[in-house]
């Protein structure tokens, strides 16, 4: 079928709910109303109120209950309505979700998924536009996935739900509906922990993920005469170091694009990885095209904040001409 990202996610949830009756979906406004972005539309009708449930406005309890269910044998898929509202539950991720397997030496495990739309560009209110993947990537035991296409959104979400360990599934809400592509019917998985090379090239490696993949692709398409290798990172943690390193060894140049503020952003880990394993192949500094070290502006100014294609183009050109 042809599907947008949001449709693909909805489809993945339907598939997994049908496949494994220990899969549960809950969160704010996910059941009765089908989710503020309609990601969970139709689930309650199909699978009933026991398995698809609206929760109170309690992010701690949403994530905490997911842990309690998962360690008891269920496969919870919790939604946090916007990733800007995940910080209240940060402690549950750090203190319990990511380490219950560790703490109990494998006796209890937390096969749970926390889905949350992230990123700027939808003209929403404050706290609706954050991208804190770098923060979550630093929690050992927590996987962090960010799909950028409908195909991956479905396949990776199914992988996340089936994963034996907790996965934070960050959804690029800016491109939830911006395009359709062919998405296989039925069940399939896309692996977590593997980047995808979207375009092979010789001149420069460009790495992005989530919504930034699309800004980056636009930039790449605008660049004549530069043979870009474009990597969709897809997994922030675990990081597919191999694909990144292999590519940079080939091209000798690299640009990383992300929405989050520059300082402390995930580009740092990528650059450190390149430094570790491909430093001597670098012909130019790795460029970062990122959000600025400020909160995401309110809607009137947010476009200034988001890395736009011309910025990305400049960085690529500069890197190639370095």
């Amino acid at each position, binding site marked *: 079928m042809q599907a947008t990202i949001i449709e693909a996610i909805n489809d993945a949830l339907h598939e997994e709910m049908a496949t494994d009756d220990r899969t549960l979906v809950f969160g*704010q406004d996910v059941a009765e109303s089908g989710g503020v972005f309609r990601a969970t539309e139709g689930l309650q009708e199909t699978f009933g109120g026991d398995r698809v449930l*609206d929760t109170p406005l309690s992010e701690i309890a949403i994530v905490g209950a997911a842990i309690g269910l998962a360690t008891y044998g269920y496969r919870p898929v919790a939604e946090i309505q916007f990733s800007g509202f995940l910080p209240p539950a940060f402690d549950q991720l750090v203190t319990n979700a990511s380490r219950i397997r560790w703490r109990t030496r494998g006796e209890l495990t937390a096969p749970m998924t926390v889905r949350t739309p992230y990123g700027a560009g939808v003209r929403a*209110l404050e*706290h609706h536009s954050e991208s804190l993947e770098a923060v979550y990537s630093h929690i050992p035991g927590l996987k962090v996935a960010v799909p950028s296409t409908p195909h991956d959104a479905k396949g990776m979400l199914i992988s996340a739900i089936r994963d034996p360990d907790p996965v934070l599934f960050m959804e690029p809400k800016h491109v939830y509906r911006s395009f359709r592509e062919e998405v296989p019917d039925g069940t399939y998985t896309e692996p977590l922990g593997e980047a995808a090379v979207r375009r092979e090239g010789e001149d420069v490696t460009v790495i992005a993920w989530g919504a930034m993949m699309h800004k980056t692709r636009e930039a790449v398409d605008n660049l004549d005469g530069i043979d870009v290798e474009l990597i969709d990172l897809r997994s922030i943690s675990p990081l597919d170091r191999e694909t990144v390193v292999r590519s940079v060894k080939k091209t000798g140049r690299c640009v990383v694009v992300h929405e989050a503020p520059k300082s402390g952003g995930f580009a740092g880990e990528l650059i450190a990885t390149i430094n570790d394993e491909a430093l001597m192949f670098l012909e130019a500094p790795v460029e970062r095209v990122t959000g600025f*070290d400020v909160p995401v502006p309110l809607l009137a*100014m947010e476009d200034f904040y988001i890395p736009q294609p011309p*910025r990305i183009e400049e960085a690529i050109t500069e890197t190639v001409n370095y």
Partner: protein
Amino acid sequence: MNEDPRPAPARPISADAETVSQDDVDVDTYRILEPDGSYDAERLPDLDDETFRELYRWMVLQRVFDNRATKLQRRGKLGTYASGRGQEASIIGSAFALSDQDRIFPYGREAGTLLIHGLSMRDLLLYWRGLEDASRMDGANSFGVAISIGSHVPVVTGTAWGMKLDDADSVAFANLGDGATSTGAFHEGINFAGVLDAPAVFFTQNNQYAISLPFEEQTAADTVAQKALGYGIDGIRVDGNDVLAVYNAVLTARENAMDGTPTLVEAVTYRRAAHTTSDDPSRYRERSEVEEWEKQDPLERYREFLQSEGLFEAIDEEAVREEIDEMFDDAVAAADEFAERDVREIFEHLHEEMPPELRRQLSEYEELLDERPDMYEHIEQRPKG
């Protein structure tokens, strides 16, 4: 030691420990104006006639502002908007009970509260247009809007604590929704306020919904007010569609708070509009429910009272509405005239002194914007609606 000494409680052993439950406590709903038009004269607040009328005018203003803003949003000239329709008595009644010294912590729907307390209508519109500059809350003694639900509650406690230390004649006043009462921040903030005897008023507009979730599914507690008992503070449950009752309730709460008993007020009301302009309430509630509440319209109820008291004659409702419409038009015009923002604005006001790295980010960006004017093809300085 017996290896497995436990009796199997699965075979029920009769146990009789007494429990305490919400049935053990009566929570009355305070009201002055009955829906049938009668009222409790004993309870009438001691206001002069003009103030009685002002209360009405401000409720109309809230109603008109909400309508106009919603329309503006539909025309793509405002961002997402959250209307207070149905909650006018709660919004205006509470605002009237506060002094200029009180610090307000808004949660979004209370246009009238902010306007009464000094914010200009232009700035309020600019806020909903997503302009940082408007959150300055110029003219009002107000914190920024708590978009992250419940996140302001412990902050309110801190400010109230400061007021107590200063022996100030003021309170910190939180506006919040029923949804916020499910958050950990609510709990920790109010519990701590109770310990501190902080002059804080936690004013909960229980409009029966947190987006699509009805109050009954947010908590098994019958009321918000009874949550006060868990904190050893006072609770007041008030008819949130009765502006005079709300006024008295918040005055009472305010006095209590200044005397060292923080108070949790629950104004029982109803959100008649969609959650925001992005929401479609038909997905989760019946139109008939809304209609039931429309019959309890706070403006009508108060108008009846004014009429029965002979206070309404001096109000030319038509003229009032026209005046407000004009204010709104002027505000939109002023907002439209508000200069395009310079990119510097998003770099400023995060630190007292901009750190070197941020300065560099700014100057590099300014250069880029110069060199690549096509950047502006990607930058729209307006709501998309």
